């Protein structure tokens, strides 16, 4: 097992390296150079050249890349082009919110999607199955920003009538370990919406996996032995269907990171996604680089973790 893990870990390194090259070169492709992007179209060539020099952007590309990677290994992601603050600090302060949002969203989606997916598989082609499948597709068709906007507008209208007052905005730069109640009230609404959006695809995947498992011979044998359907499911089907579900969860990580961008924007949650949108509108190249890199690394690490969990749970992988 250690050998499998070591193998997988080694495979990750070239991918990570490739990712850094992509991120680096992507943002160097800006037409006119990063300095022009920052200064806007009205910059004189002298201003642009001066800024390039200040930001160290006129050094040979290979050197810049090596400096950047070297800095990364020390946890230094460079400075924001706009306000010269260290990017790793900026991201570190905000990533807590994004993590919280993502974790809760994943939790909600699993709570909703797993039972429904399993049930839909057992009662395949029943009315419930059709209903579940249609609502799953509806959930993943509805844009989260629309759903959130409607909820906020119609919800706050209703809540005002009821005399309640739900806060929907968070002050920027707020520390993550603030008072728990307030913290949750800020994260739960967007997490619910993100979770709902996710639950569509998780439900469909669960259902498909469950269906495949239910077709297996050992399920038929168990039922032939006279076991109740629920016992069969609990003891035999579930364990085997849940293993691919781990993969499914792993697949949701990139979706969560992306989805948090939208929801943080709507609910003004000062997370990494909000930071990215700001950076994109201001064309803060190094900040964008930092966020893109961190996101990709998170995805790669979570895939690694999923593979590892898979190998622990499924002996067939372990002993391959």
């Amino acid at each position: 097992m250690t050998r499998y893990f070591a193998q997988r870990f080694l495979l990750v390194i070239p991918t990570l390296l490739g990712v850094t090259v992509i991120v680096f070169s992507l943002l160097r492709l800006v037409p006119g150079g990063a300095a022009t992007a920052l200064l806007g179209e009205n910059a004189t060539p002298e201003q642009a050249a001066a800024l390039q020099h200040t930001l160290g952007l006129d050094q040979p590309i290979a050197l810049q890349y090596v400096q950047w990677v070297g800095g990364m290994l020390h946890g230094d992601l460079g400075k924001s082009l706009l306000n010269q603050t260290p990017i790793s600090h900026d991201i570190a302060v905000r990533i807590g919110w994004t993590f919280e949002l993502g974790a809760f969203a994943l939790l909600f989606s699993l709570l909703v999607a797993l039972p429904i997916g399993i049930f839909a598989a057992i009662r395949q082609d029943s009315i419930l199955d059709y209903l579940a499948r249609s609502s799953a597709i509806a959930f993943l068709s509805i844009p989260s920003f629309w759903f959130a906007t409607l909820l906020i507008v119609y919800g706050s209208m209703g809540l005002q009538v009821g005399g309640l007052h739900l806060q929907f905005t968070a002050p920027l730069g707020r520390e993550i370990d603030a008072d728990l109640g307030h913290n949750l009230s800020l994260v739960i609404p967007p997490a619910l919406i993100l979770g709902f959006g996710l639950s569509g695809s998780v439900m469909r995947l669960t259902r498909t996996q469950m269906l495949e498992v239910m077709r297996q011979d050992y399920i038929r044998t168990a039922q032939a032995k006279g076991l109740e359907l629920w016992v069969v499911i609990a003891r035999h089907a579930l364990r085997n269907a849940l293993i691919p579900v781990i993969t499914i969860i792993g697949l949701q990580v990139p979706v969560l990171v992306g989805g948090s961008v939208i929801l943080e924007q709507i609910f003004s949650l000062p997370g990494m996604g909000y930071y990215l949108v700001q950076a994109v509108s201001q064309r803060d190249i190094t900040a964008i680089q930092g966020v893109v890199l961190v996101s990709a690394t998170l995805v790669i690490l979570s895939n690694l973790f999923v593979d590892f969990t898979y190998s622990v749970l499924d002996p067939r992988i372990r002993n391959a």
Partner: protein
Amino acid sequence: MATEGRLIDVSGGLGARLGAETQLRPLRAVVRFLRTKPLGSIGAAIVLAIILLAIFAPLIAPYGLDNRVIAERMQNPSMKHLLGTDELGRDILSRVIYGARVSAFVGFGSVLIATVIAAAIGMVSGFFGGKVDLIIQRLVDMWIAFPFLILLLAFMAVFGTPFGKAHLGPVTLEPSQQRAAQIIVILGLLFAIRDSRVVRGATMAIRNNTYVEAGRGLGASNLRILLSYILPNIAPPLLVLATLQLGTAILAESTLGFLGFGIPDPVPSWGHMLSGAARARVRIDPWLAFWPGLAISLSVFAFNMLGDALRDVLDPRLRGSR
């Protein structure tokens, strides 16, 4: 048909090339589809409606796409303006109809590019295997490590906001057209990388089939085998993928519009109509937020339903396995 003891392939290889894996008899298949897949048929109908709205927008929309009458702004739905007016007095119904143009154009454009490129990459990777496959898949691995929206936003930052006219040879592009072109190309490329995996899987599943061997025996070159034997037989899953990808494309374009990086005003795009700027006014006039979002949801829902139904119908493994 055997004549004089010899087996003659009267079709000239057509049977193998026109989909040995799935049999499609067009008209009867369509009717059967309508009968057995009600949800998919509804999806198909909505898709058709969107295409028609997109093509005939100027004829169907009661007002223009940027018909500002400040005196009539922020009105609720009425007989004069069926879906109400927005903050500049523009008829929302007309803008939603014109928005279908943007969604259809960006959607079909990007998916077309994506399908062609994905087919090329996936078939090469899956058919030849070995080192070629290894290298291509490592590259694909790197690109799919990035969360989609984040990478998309990074590209938008690289492009910057288009302004002024751009000249591409004989063609002059307005800013909104430039932006549309940028979005179509980037979405196409990003989708292509993800889709190539599916194409690769489908290719690998059939590359060792007998008719491929037969083709080789007849002296077909690799290119001919890819185009005449493999491609027609991976077309069904490719079609399903493209249909589902259309929904994703519309969602992606509207998300960009919502965040403010999409196609700029005055061209109406559904996402932009729901954007942050509009959100502020939504508390005064809740109707503003409703219609464009409904349009997005319905379109994506339609493509998803259609894609699912197509998958059920075209996948030979699922047929008869109830």
